[in-house]
């Protein structure tokens, strides 16, 4: 029993030891809970839950007429996980059974590779067991729908390994039309234009969702922890797609003919200040043109277009009238050692009006120098009245401030006596085309200066949450008498001045001012022979509707660089289109005269002949042209030629649709149709001028 006792105390010692150890275990657990508990619990929560962002749908940018200028569409990037269990199960049974039909389907859908190529690549990727094989990027929703029904893919994510990642693509339905102004939205790149200015509005609010990892790598939303995303608001702009298109094309034509470096053109509605179009083109090294920058907002020395302001100052301060004479010394004037030269030789003395229309630098610098030397502040107050001392405040962040030396902030001694003379014809100060246009628009608007703006309204889920109204910056920039004289001078530029040739044939009257300035910016010096051609004006003269500015920076030593010959044609082309556009709008639809239709027939010469002989009417056709409008008179068929040309609208009334389409589309028009039967009316009246590509609406009875 001694042995057993000896053993027994050892056993109890072991038992005790294990008992103590048990307490240690529980103690450790207690310690973990009591003193580190919150740390571990919060770690547990952070490891197992995660906050996911729910992307908000970006708002759409609309034109004034409701066309989408920039909108968002879902897009899919398709990947395949060749390591998916379901795909590899049973030695890739699913994969090998479907590979052939899948390859054929893919080749048919994407059309970029043959079925054999697809098959080869998929097999290779399967062999390499790629976990994230990129099948196709930027798949549209329609394609994605088709893809989902394909063999293998339709087995679902687990069995096919197909992964679709949704991305939102920003789409500009009109391509790069005005995109510096509208803005392109691309991930990871800086925004420009309205996309930038209204980013906070368009972006919406990203939603948040708390998710928890559960078994099998599935994410499960945690109830009550979800913030729904708020979709971005829609921005309705003042831009008119048609005018924008016209503007862009007109500018492009001039840019390419002259191989110019940069160009911009803005169209503004006179009465409201709405920007209807804003085009910017910059030459790329390859010689193509692209909206490289918003030149409309960049400042430069304006040159002769500023002469409107010079004249305004002199007239308003009653130093002169436009019929006063002024000595221009044949176009060369020596001012304290500096020679101011006109582009053309002129007479010794001329009227101020003529000097303006001929764009005499001497006359304009003289006006400024003569009447304001010693009192630049008096001159400067006109810049203030014209809001040329600050930004216009247009809804674009890229706008530059004008640079005009403020005599109120400079000591008289530091004021250079030549500055006023330079100001007179547009140097030593920098103004952007938009700011200049605002001034011309005010003159067109009888002295009432409107603030230029791009934003009509903002809608949130269809309801208007912000509406912009035209803003008057200055009820009268000058007296009525001054404005009248300015308007007269501007009109004279287009009838007898530097832009005379461009408007000789115009069916409307325009007013404006040419400008040809030597460029001295960071890149070019005055001696480099780079000229900036400009034309700013408005039309029609009697009741101005639109004001337009065109500014083009030419290539060095360009053969053609005058504002009248480079910029004015752009104005003319745009004005021509807008004129037609406005005429068409004014003419209400004429109701067709029903009964006369019964006896008239319009169609091809041959067909009229056939009909006449078939029905036994006497008919002899000796007229020119292929198209006839015929009617019965005293049982004889009388015919007229239907004039077809590319410049005027043919009279297609009475024709069948087939004939009318032929006539109009060979003339280059785009035709839309409503109704059935024969043509009873057209959106453009017969005989009015039409352009290639213009849209014509045909009404059939």
């Amino acid at each position, binding site marked *: 029993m001694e*042995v*057993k006792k*000896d*053993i*027994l105390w*050892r*056993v*109890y010692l*072991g*038992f005790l030891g*294990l*008992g103590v*150890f*048990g307490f*240690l*275990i*529980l103690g*450790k*657990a*207690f310690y*973990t*809970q009591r003193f*580190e*508990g*919150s*740390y*571990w*619990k919060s*770690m*547990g929560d952070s*490891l*197992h839950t995660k906050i996911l962002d729910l992307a908000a749908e970006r708002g759409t940018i609309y034109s004034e007429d409701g066309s989408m200028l920039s909108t968002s569409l879902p897009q899919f990037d398709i990947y395949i996980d060749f390591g998916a269990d379901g795909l590899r199960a049973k030695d890739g049974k699913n994969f090998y059974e479907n590979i052939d039909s899948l390859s054929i389907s893919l080749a048919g859908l994407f059309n970029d590779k043959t079925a054999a190529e697809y098959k080869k690549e998929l097999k290779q990727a399967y062999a390499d067991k790629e976990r994230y094989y990129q099948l196709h990027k930027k798949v549209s929703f329609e394609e994605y729908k088709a893809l989902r029904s394909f063999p293998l893919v339709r087995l679902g994510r687990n069995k096919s390994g197909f992964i679709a990642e949704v991305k939102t693509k920003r789409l500009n339905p009109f391509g790069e039309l005005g995109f510096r102004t509208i803005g392109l939205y691309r991930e990871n790149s800086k925004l420009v234009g309205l996309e930038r200015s209204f980013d906070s509005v368009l972006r919406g609010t990203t939603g948040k969702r708390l998710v928890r*990892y*559960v*078994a*099998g790598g599935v994410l499960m939303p945690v109830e009550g922890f979800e913030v729904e995303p708020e979709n971005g608001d829609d921005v309705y702009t003042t831009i008119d797609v048609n005018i924008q298109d016209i503007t862009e094309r007109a500018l492009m034509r001039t840019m390419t003919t002259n191989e110019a470096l940069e160009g911009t053109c803005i169209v503004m509605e006179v009465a409201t200040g709405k920007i209807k179009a804003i085009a910017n083109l910059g030459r790329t090294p390859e010689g193509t043109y692209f909206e490289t920058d918003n030149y409309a907002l960049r400042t430069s020395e304006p040159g002769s277009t500023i002469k409107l302001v010079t004249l305004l100052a002199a007239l308003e301060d009653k130093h002169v009238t436009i019929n006063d004479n002024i000595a221009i010394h044949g176009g060369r004037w020596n001012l304290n050692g500096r020679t101011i030269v006109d582009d053309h030789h002129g007479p010794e003395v001329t009227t101020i009006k003529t000097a303006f229309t001929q764009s005499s630098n001497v006359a304009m610098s003289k006006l400024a120098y003569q009447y304001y030397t010693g009192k630049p502040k008096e001159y400067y107050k006109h810049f203030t009245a014209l809001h040329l001392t600050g930004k216009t405040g247009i809804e674009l962040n890229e706008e530059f401030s004008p640079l005009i030396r403020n005599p109120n902030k400079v000591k008289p001694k530091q004021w250079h006596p030549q500055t006023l003379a330079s100001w007179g014809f547009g140097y030593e100060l920098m103004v952007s085309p938009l700011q200049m246009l605002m001034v011309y628009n005010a003159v067109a608007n009888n002295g009432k200066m409107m603030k230029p703006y791009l934003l009509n309204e903002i809608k949130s889920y269809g309801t208007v949450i912000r509406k912009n109204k035209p803003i008057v910056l200055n009820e009268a920039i000058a007296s009525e008498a001054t404005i009248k004289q300015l308007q007269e001078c501007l009109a004279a530029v287009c009838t007898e001045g530097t832009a005379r040739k461009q408007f000789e044939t115009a069916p409307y009257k325009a007013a404006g001012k040419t400008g040809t300035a030597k460029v001295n910016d960071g890149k070019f010096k005055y001696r480099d022979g780079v000229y900036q051609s400009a034309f700013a004006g408005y039309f029609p003269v009697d009741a101005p509707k639109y004001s337009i500015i065109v500014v083009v920076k030419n290539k060095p030593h360009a053969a053609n660089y005058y504002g009248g010959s480079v910029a004015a044609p752009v104005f003319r082309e745009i004005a021509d289109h807008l004129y037609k556009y406005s005429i068409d709008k004014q003419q209400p639809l004429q109701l067709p005269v029903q009964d006369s239709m019964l006896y008239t027939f319009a169609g091809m010469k041959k067909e009229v002949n056939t009909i006449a002989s078939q029905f036994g009417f006497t008919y002899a056709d000796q007229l020119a042209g292929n198209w006839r409008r015929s009617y019965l008179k005293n049982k004889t068929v009388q015919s007229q030629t239907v004039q077809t040309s590319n410049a005027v609208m043919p009279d297609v009334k009475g024709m069948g649709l087939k004939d009318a389409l032929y006539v109009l589309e060979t003339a280059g028009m785009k035709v839309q149709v409503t109704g059935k039967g024969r043509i009873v009316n057209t959106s453009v009246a017969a005989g009015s001028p039409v352009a290639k590509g213009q849209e014509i609406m045909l009404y059939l009875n």
Partner: protein
Amino acid sequence: MSQIANISSKFSPAGLRDKTRGDKVIWAIVVVLSLVSLLVVYSATNSLAYKLYKGNTFVYLFKQIAFITLGIIIVYFAHRVNYTIYSRVAKMLFYISIVLLIYTLFFGAKINDGSRWIKLPIINLTVQTSDIAKLALFMYLSRLLSKKQDVIKDFKKGFLPLMMPIVIICGLIAPANLSTALLTGATSMLLLFIGRVSFKHIALVGAAVAVPVIILIAIAGAYYDKAEGKTKELPAVLSAGRIPTWIKRVQDFMYAEKSEAPYQVLQAKIAVAKGGMFGLGPGNSEQRNFLPHPYSDYIYAIIIEEYGLIGASFIVFIYMVFLFRSIRLFRKCPYAFGAFLALALSFTLVIQAMTNMAVNVGLFPVTGVTLPLVSMGGSSFLFTCLAIGIILSVARNVEDAEGSLEPAKEELA
């Protein structure tokens, strides 16, 4: 007549009850732990069932029920065997286990560079051979201890014959599973101590084992880049087999900051922290989704998470009761072998349980040890049942011995 009565009593429920003998408390513990196992395994396999059986969580429940049934059958038959037979079997089983260990070392299924498993044909069950070897070793040690009591203090006659089997078995387990080898060795030492082996000799073994362990710790310290917080590049000698794993584990335990602890340690701590005093309630574990092997190696963490410190204490208590009842058997057992057998097997089980719990609460470095009778199925569960069966067999004999002095009341009734 008596023969017929015998036969009928064998198959009637009452007969089965008569045949079921041994310590009733130990039986009760087996039942309670099995029930706990059912509850926790069902909860812990939830995520595994999701992954493999599309959410049919009953699959593992039924599997565990099958295992428990099989386990109880094993306990029953093992306890019906007269334990003296185990004495004879012990030596044979010991030799067989050596062969099995060697086979496993070279041909076994590899998991994480450790070759620990062999697959039994026909029944398609993977068996961790160290489980068999452990059982065989402790049975064999009990036999030796009981036989050598007279010469136990002698180095050559007592100590060496006892030490040899331990060295062989532990040496064969170590390459694939160092922690099990250490655990087995330590338990053996405890048994030698209880078996009155000279304390000097045991200290000698302690010193001999300490040398490689200290070397391992030294290497782990030397090849740890504190600035980077990771293991430096190891020379070729140290990159063989599982040596890098050992080094890494020691380093993790020695250096890791709270947040840098190995993933499973981190998740286990979170489970413990979430449990609190009363736990989240049955089936409410969240950590089961993140803990590796929440149904076996980390089942205790899940128990704490679902049943709190109360539940955790209950499990510790149950194992201590189990050990206490085995000590009672030892006191009552008239034969040395039986006494040692009950002690050896119960201490092993409880030490293994404590180790599992210590790992779970972060008291020990990470080792893959199951919680006996609670962890889900597998060969270790069945071997645990076999061990308990053997203990109950001793208990039955103790009862029989007592019964011979005062006849069992049931027989009279």
